[in-house]
Structure formats: C-alpha cells, structure tokens
C-alpha cells in the first residue's frame, strides 16, 4: 500500500516502503512511468528515489487532493515499468588511489576486490548529491565499506567510487568520502543536448575491465 504525504504547497511524496528493496523501487519506477505517460494539469516534475516518488506541481493550478486522486487512479491500473537499458562501462583499476586500502580493510587481495566489483549487478536507484551522480545499487557485500571519516577534496570526474552497497561514477570535481577504486572514460554528463544524462533511473550497468593502455586509447 502506498502512502501519500503532502509536502508544503506544491508536492506529494508517494511512499512504497521504508527500507531499500527491489520491490519498492520497481513500484516507484512504475508510477513514475505511468505519470510521465499520463500527466495531470499543473504537473511540474517527478523525482524517483529508493522507496518513494516526489511529485511536484503548480499550486496555482491544482492541489494535493486532486494530485493524490490522480496518482491513486494511476496506481490502481496495472503498471508496466519501462524496459531498462543495460550500459557497458569500461573501468581501469590501475593506479586507483584507494584500491589497496579497500583490499586491506576487506581482507581481500586487490584482484579479489576487482573481481568482486566486476561481479556486481548494478542498477541506478536514484540521482543525488550533484548533477549526474547516479547511485548504482548492487555492490557485493564482500567489498561493502563505510565511508571514509573525512572527505577528500577535488576528486575529478570519471572516478569509480564505492561506499555501502552503492557505486558511483563522479561527473564533476567534487569532494567525496567514498573509496576511489578505478576510473572510466564513460561520461554520465554527456554534454549532448538530446541526452544530457547517460543513464535513466532503473537502467542496469555492467562494468568490464580495461588496462591502462586500453583506457588511454579509449575516446
């Protein structure tokens, strides 16, 4: 059962659970998809997260009660989520600043850390923190670590970073307390007008390993 929580004068939060689960996230994506296919008058935008969907609206045109009625109506119909895209992302693990420390803390060899990272089944749960920071769930338990106690400043774009059960590709020069285990030429902020963000929420990501030489040869 979904919970409908009104926010201020201009939004509803539709909540499908309290803990991160594939089932809750599937419901979030299904409602998101249904809403984008059937928007209401005054709809501004929807933001999917782990267990809930934020629906922002223009309070001059509509109100919480009308929006809730519209969303309940959508939720009553069979929801078919969009077929997710699977993206192949090359990763170079050579000269990654935190790979040795992750190995030490998890008690694995660096090769085992890399193998674990490559074995993960990743899916974009939400974007957050900064433009283009796509939170990919599915990091194996074996390399699950808490964040560093102090963030590192000035981490460049294109770094593969991990913390908890999540993996991210950095898109900007920003501070991060996550562990930097590799880098990729893949740009989530594409700079392209038609598709400025590479992944949609719900998309799958598969990482594959490239050598330093291959990484440097990639466009």
């Amino acid at each position: 059962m979904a919970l409908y929580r009104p926010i201020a004068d201009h939004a509803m939060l539709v909540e499908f659970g309290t803990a991160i689960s594939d089932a809750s996230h599937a419901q979030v994506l299904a409602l998101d998809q249904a809403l984008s296919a059937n928007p209401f008058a005054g709809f501004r935008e929807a933001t999917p997260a782990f267990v809930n969907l934020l629906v922002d609206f223009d309070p001059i045109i509509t109100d919480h009660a009308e929006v809730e009625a519209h969303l309940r109506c959508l939720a009553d119909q069979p929801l078919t989520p969009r077929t997710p895209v699977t993206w192949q992302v090359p990763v170079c693990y050579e000269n990654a600043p935190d790979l040795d420390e992750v190995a030490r803390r998890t008690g694995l060899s660096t090769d085992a850390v890399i193998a674990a990272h490559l074995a993960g089944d990743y899916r974009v749960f939400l974007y957050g923190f900064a433009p283009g920071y796509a939170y990919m769930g599915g990091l194996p338990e074996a390399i699950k670590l808490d964040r560093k106690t102090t963030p590192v400043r000035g981490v460049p774009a294109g770094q593969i970073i991990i913390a908890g059960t999540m993996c991210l590709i950095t898109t900007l020069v920003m501070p991060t307390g996550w562990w930097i285990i590799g880098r990729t030429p893949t740009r989530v902020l594409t700079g392209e007008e038609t598709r400025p963000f590479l992944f949609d929420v719900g998309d799958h990501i598969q990482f594959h390993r490239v050598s330093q030489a291959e990484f440097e040869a990639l466009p």
Partner: protein
Amino acid sequence: MTRLRVAFAGPHVTFQDSGRLGRMRYGVPASGPMDRKAFAIAQSIFANPPDAAAIEVSLGGLSLDCVEGHVTFAVVGGGFIVQIGARRLGAWAVHTLHQGERLVIRPGPWGSWTYLAFAGDLVAPQWLGSSATHGPSGLGGGTLAAGQEVIVQDARVAPTLEGSIPCPIWARPRRVIHAVLGPQDRFFSAESLEDLATQPFHLTNAYDRMGVRLRGPSLTPEGALSIPSEPILRGSVQVAGDGLATVMLADHGTTGGYPKIATVVSDDLDGFVQLRPNDAVRFKLVLAPQAVALARQGDKALRAYLNRPR
C-alpha cells in the same frame, strides 16, 4: 552592444534566469534566483522573457565599469545601495549607465540578495537550455569574477522607465514563515515538534545558495539516521544528526538521507532569504490546504503588482 567590465564581485554573485526546471531526477535542482519575486519584478520592468538572464548580487556586492555603450538597468530586491560614480541611489529603481561610469551595488539597511536586470539581452553561458547558475558546480551562467566582461546585446536606453519603483510590503524580509510538517516529521519527538512551532530560530553564517543552517533548539531525530535517501525540495527543513536544522534553498541537493521535519511554503521563501545571518525567524505550522491558499494569495499579489497601472 554595451560592454561592462567587472571591477569587483563578492562571493555568490551569479547569472540567473528563472530556473532550470524538470531535471531533479538527474540530480539537478532548479537553481535560479534566491528571491524569485524580486527577480520577476526586475525583469518585468523591461518586459524581458522568463528565460532571460539577470545578475543576482549577494551581500558581497558588485562593481561594474561601463566600457562601451550605455544601457538602462533596474536593481530590485533588498535594501541595497546603488551608486553611479559619486551619485548614491537606492535599489528598487531604474537608472541608465553610460560609457565611462562605474556602477556599484552594495548591501544597505536590509536584505541579502538583489537583482540587476537590463533593458537588453544579457549574454550568459547556458547549460541544459538555461543560464541559471548551479553554484556548487559552476554549471550554467556562472559566477562573476573581477576582470570579466559582461555583454548586453541590443542594449536600450529607456528614459521613460527611469525612477524609483514601489517596494511592496511582501517583498520585505519575513520573520515568520509558514511551513507544513513533514514529510519525515514522524522521526521527531513531540517536544521537538513543539519547539519547531513555538521557539525562535536564528540564521547562521552557514548561508549560501544551497541552504542556510539555523541556530535554535536541538531537534534531534530519533532512529532516523539510516533512512533511505529521499527527494529534497527548496524549502525542506532538514535536520542532521546533531539536531541542527538547515533550510534548503535554490541550489539544494536533490536527494538526501537526513529527515525533513517540515517544508517551508514557497510563497515565504523569497522573504525568508532576504533575512541575514543572526536574524530571528519563527515557523508557523499550517496544513497543506492552507499552504496552497497562501501560494495562490501570494501569486495574486505578485500579479496585481506586475499589472499595476504605470
């Protein structure tokens, strides 16, 4: 074409248009002006379109030298001081800047943000179709820096528009702001909810376009340190583990794992951001239907002002 050169720019002086909407799902907040009403008034003077850029000036101030040409401009929002050469003028006014003159905008008796709009097309870089500046990344129009040139294309001189314009009462700083509880008020004790509704809070110096941290009663959340990241809005009152509340503003992060005890209604945010560090503010809790009524009332007042006979 009119060419201006930045002689001095304080921190957080940026190009902004009315905002970059619809990209929250990709981690991009709307950005745009901190005081959206003042921005709208400034742009309306020249009938500039909603996607036109203006310059948002912070308490840091701005000095511009007119290197070439001339242009009529408006400064709207806050009680800022505006000077052309030795002539000391106020904000909420329209003037013309001529070649060789220096325009100085600096903080006056009240307010934290003001808008410099031009009769003409202010040239600013765009990102995703908007010149709104996302402060933390610098994407969009960008932050102004000394030495930079600012270009106004098709700059006009409009003597009939010159003079002062009225500063409506609702454009003044708001010391009482309406908020709706939630969406994560369930993580707070009855005492914390009572404190939020009855105790004064103070803005701190931790104030930028992303948000402002408040000083006040500790609102420590109970058992909420591991909630899954949820969407954040402009106006979200987020409480970190230390019990301190932060009101999220134009450049807010789009998702976060700290609980939001309440959300400030949009109509009060423009007046709220015109407060300054150490100013007191109180929350007045309302239900969602009242919040909608406030939004409609505020919109009606703004439209009546913009359509006033001149």
